[in-house]
């Protein structure tokens, strides 16, 4: 019952979250109406970017920060639950929402593709799996950030941090592709940040590479989660409501 209460709370905590799911879901059908859709258009890639990378940022907005700012955390944190449990169930709540969302999206895309024949379903299953994995990594990072960032600013912070990290990388790759600094920075971003680049190749190469990509993604998710749990356990919940 404890798990159910905490997992369902991640979906029920704001009525707007239902609208977010609906809005994200309804964004897919209009894509099938684009007049000159290229033959190589991969529906899986769109799911990866739209639901895998952007949805977690919205769903996890203020997942701890809202409670901390409102003072609600003072009621929750005095209940007899481990703070690590609180974190894990909240993360699982997001992850399960993503799983349900992605399954529904996959069904919708398969149906529309069957009806219209537009675009490509190349590596579709791998893309859906990659979308769920990247969702989990972003969600863990955002949830951990929410422990220390006020209100729902964790999402905006994450977006800004992503721009700050990825834009220089893009510029470096554009102008100094072969320099040691570029290669070092690229490696740090590739393996230390949410593994967008790694998971984009899921299903494209050998099975071992795919398994390594999955393991890397899960490892990063666990690492981000562990940091969040440590932060939560060492956080004070002061009396002032924000």
């Amino acid at each position, binding site marked *: *019952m*404890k798990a*159910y*209460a*905490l997992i369902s*709370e991640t979906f*029920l*905590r*704001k*009525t707007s979250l239902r609208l977010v799911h609906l809005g994200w879901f309804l964004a897919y059908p209009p894509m099938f109406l684009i007049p000159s859709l290229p033959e190589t258009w991969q529906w899986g890639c769109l799911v990866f970017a739209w639901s895998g990378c952007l949805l977690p940022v919205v769903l996890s907005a203020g997942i701890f920060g809202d*409670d901390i700012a*409102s*003072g*609600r955390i*003072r*009621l*929750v*944190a*005095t*209940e*007899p*639950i*481990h703070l690590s449990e609180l974190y894990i169930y909240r993360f699982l709540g997001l992850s399960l929402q993503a799983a349900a969302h992605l399954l529904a999206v996959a069904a919708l895309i398969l149906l529309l593709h069957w009806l219209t024949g537009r675009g490509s379903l190349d590596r579709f299953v791998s893309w859906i799996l990659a979308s769920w994995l990247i969702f989990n990594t972003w969600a863990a990072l955002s949830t951990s950030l929410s422990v220390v960032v006020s209100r729902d600013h964790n999402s905006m912070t994450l977006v800004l941090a992503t721009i700050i990290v990825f834009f220089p990388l893009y510029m470096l790759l554009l102008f100094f592709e072969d320099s040691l600094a570029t290669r070092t920075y690229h490696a740090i971003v590739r393996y230390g940040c949410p593994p967008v680049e790694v998971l984009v190749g899921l299903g494209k190469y050998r099975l071992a590479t795919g398994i390594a990509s999955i393991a890397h993604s899960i490892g990063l998710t666990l690492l981000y989660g562990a940091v969040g749990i440590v932060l939560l356990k060492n956080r*004070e*919940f*002061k*009396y002032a*409501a924000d």
Partner: protein
Amino acid sequence: MSEDGSEMAPVIECREVTKVYGGGRAGRKASVCALDNVSWQVGGGTIVGLVGPNGAGKTTLLSLIAGLLFPTQGSIRVCGHPARSLDARRSLGYVPESPAFLSCYSARAVLKHHAALHGLSREAISGETERVLSQLRLEEYADRAVGGFSQGMRQRLALAVALLDSPRLLLLDEPSNGLDPIGVIELRRILSEVRQSGATVIISSHRLGELERLTSDYIFLHRGRIVKFGRDDAVAQTGRLRIEFLPGSPRLREDVLAPYDLAEESETHLVVAVNGIEDVPGVVGSLVKAGALLTGVTLEMQDIEETFVRLCQERAS
């Protein structure tokens, strides 16, 4: 309550607790000492009033006991367990000053949610939820969204949450905020029931009159230090003895009342500060021996509010 806690295992045990806020990195923020070397303990089945002016450290002390803050120095144990441990939190219920809930949840959903966090079974969750709804007389509002609740209703709901699973220790931070007079009476009734069940209640309140009706045990905090604590006969020990007499009585002040503080003096009356009813025969006897023709004697013991003001003035001076 006892200073040495010798009679029974303490429900709360604070040892040399200091809490300093701020200081920050590189000392950019000035640090504030909210609690300074506070030690006290309280046994079971009592209601203790936590009294002090704004900024005295009342909320900090409650937050430390609840495990929401870490002490800078010292240690706190709740029912024998370190504060913030799972066992300590299992033993306590906490009502913050401004309780907040998920606004889209109904009162019943909030209670079921918190009951689930206690690890209860499905049947026990329903049973506990209905029990506290009934105890707080919230049945009428049980299915309304909490977002539409007034401050007083939120306080009642927070108290209902805190009472789930019958805690051994109840921490209440300004619980009567926003409550109407009937709500305050209800609160008194509930807290009396809680005390009768053997639980300990620590209640911080600015409504000293309300505290007086609930408890005779107090902790007076001032600038992070315990100024006084104990039962009211120890805390509110000063009183005012008003003595009326016929004009022309001998030089009373210098000769007779030298050991006492004289608060007021006129041709026909005196007001003397005394430490309790036991001082009255001595004062009156001395006056009669000195030849004063007394027409009336009235003893007014200080209530908790006056004691509070007096202690604050003493500390300030």
